[in-house]
């Protein structure tokens, strides 16, 4: 890892973004499903209200300044926070300033970027396709794998890529709860900040350029796929 100061942070960031996205797909898919289609089964007014509140909560990280989110997370996950103390009891270390803490913070921070595309995809698919599959004798699992996932693949792709890319670009939250610890919480954005602060402009340039190229490539890929798939 010594050949380039950015190698450690790059791998750490990729790992963080990948784990965050997988976690978010697991948590976010049922949530998006419920937001898009779940409520229609029970059309009571009460459910409508809950839905609006949940939708607003999901979108909150889009609007909140990362410093606000980071400050609350630091308070919750630090040595004096409820979550932090529980974690200290479990592992002996506070949740803040650890990789696990970063994963939790990133999942909250990138939640809307995964849930919203999925929710939109489910909504535009509607129930008709699934009902057709059921009436043809497919069970829930078959319906999910053969109808829903292929139908909503553009939504899944967008959710995956946006969730991944948004976690790559995370800065304010990590700065608050991460603590800039090499191989643990020093992600690329923090490493660039750190290199600039300590006057290593050459390395900062290199690392920034890699991130710029990678982000551009990711977006080209996602728009390219979306274009192809929307024509099918």
């Amino acid at each position, binding site marked *: *890892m010594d050949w380039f100061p950015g190698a*450690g942070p790059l*791998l*750490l960031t*990729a*790992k963080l973004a*990948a*784990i965050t*996205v*997988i976690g978010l797909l697991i948590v976010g898919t049922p949530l998006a499903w419920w937001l898009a289609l779940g409520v229609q089964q029970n059309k009571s007014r009460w459910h409508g209200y809950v839905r609006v509140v949940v939708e607003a909560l999901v979108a909150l990280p889009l609007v909140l300044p990362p410093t606000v989110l980071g400050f609350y997370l*630091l308070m919750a996950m*630090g*040595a*004096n926070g409820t979550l*932090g103390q529980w974690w*200290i009891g479990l*592992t*002996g*270390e*506070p949740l*803040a*300033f*650890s*990789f*696990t803490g970063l994963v939790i913070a990133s999942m909250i921070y990138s939640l809307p970027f995964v849930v919203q595309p999925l929710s939109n995809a489910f909504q535009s698919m509607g129930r008709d396709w699934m009902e057709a599959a059921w009436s043809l004798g497919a069970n829930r699992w078959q319906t999910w794998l053969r109808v829903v*996932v292929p139908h909503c*693949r553009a939504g*899944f*792709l967008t959710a*995956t890529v946006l969730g*991944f890319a948004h976690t790559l670009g995370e800065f304010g939250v990590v700065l608050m709860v991460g*603590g*800039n*610890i*090499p*191989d*643990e919480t*020093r992600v690329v954005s923090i490493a660039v900040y*750190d290199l*600039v*602060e*300590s*006057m*290593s*402009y050459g390395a900062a340039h290199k690392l920034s350029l890699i991130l710029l190229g990678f982000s551009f490539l990711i977006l080209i890929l996602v728009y390219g*796929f979306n274009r192809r798939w929307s024509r099918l």
Partner: protein
Amino acid sequence: MTLRYLLGGVILILGLSPESLVAKNGAGTSSHKQGNHEGLPLRVAVASNFSPTAHKIVTSFEAGTNAKVSISSASSGKLYAQIKQGAPFDVFLSADAIRPDLLVKEGYAVAASNRVYAHGRLVFWVPGVSGNESTCRQLLYSGQLTRVAMANPDVAPYGYATRQTLTALGLKNPVFTLIFGENIGQTFAFIHAGGVAAGFIAASQWQLSNRSGCAWEVGTQYHAPIAQRAVLLNRASNNALARRFLDFLHSSKTQAKIKASGYLLGDQ
């Protein structure tokens, strides 16, 4: 189909996670419990102004001891807050005396370890104008400069010293606009990038720069000394390696290195 490849790619990235992570942390975060220091890197929190010098010191410390030291840098204020929230640092090299003193008072650091390791010096730098120290200093009064960068006096020790200097120079209400960097590292970056034509930076940064233009080394008669203190944090109170690092920091050999990097020496 394509989705399957995509998921495969994500799993591949997971598999490529830094091997060093696993190797260094052993059984993961659970091994960080107090009292167990074997195989763990020594974690040093360093105020940004001292970070380039700290890297040099750490390199020679590592060579002499075979130990692994990791450096985390940020502004002293941010590091102070993180330490109070339980950040896993063993040693704290602050840019001031206030925060280490507070940490000792509040029970987060070992009182006996609290010592000055360097005194910071200020330099007024104008990269675009050539001349000697006095012409450089006169630029402050000339009206030629529209904007001057300095570190934020409320959070950065170098900013506090800059404000004292400006007051001492009779420039409490200067004709130029003051641009505040969050810390001295950002202040230097403002000037280096050409965004601001002049500013007050740390002498250690001036040493590392290309030293273009003119510079005035602000004497210590203009501001209270920027005493930078280092403390051993409580979690490392039984960590022999951390104590060894502090001894190394205060050793005459390292102190000479610190002086050569643009600081005045600590308490003798």
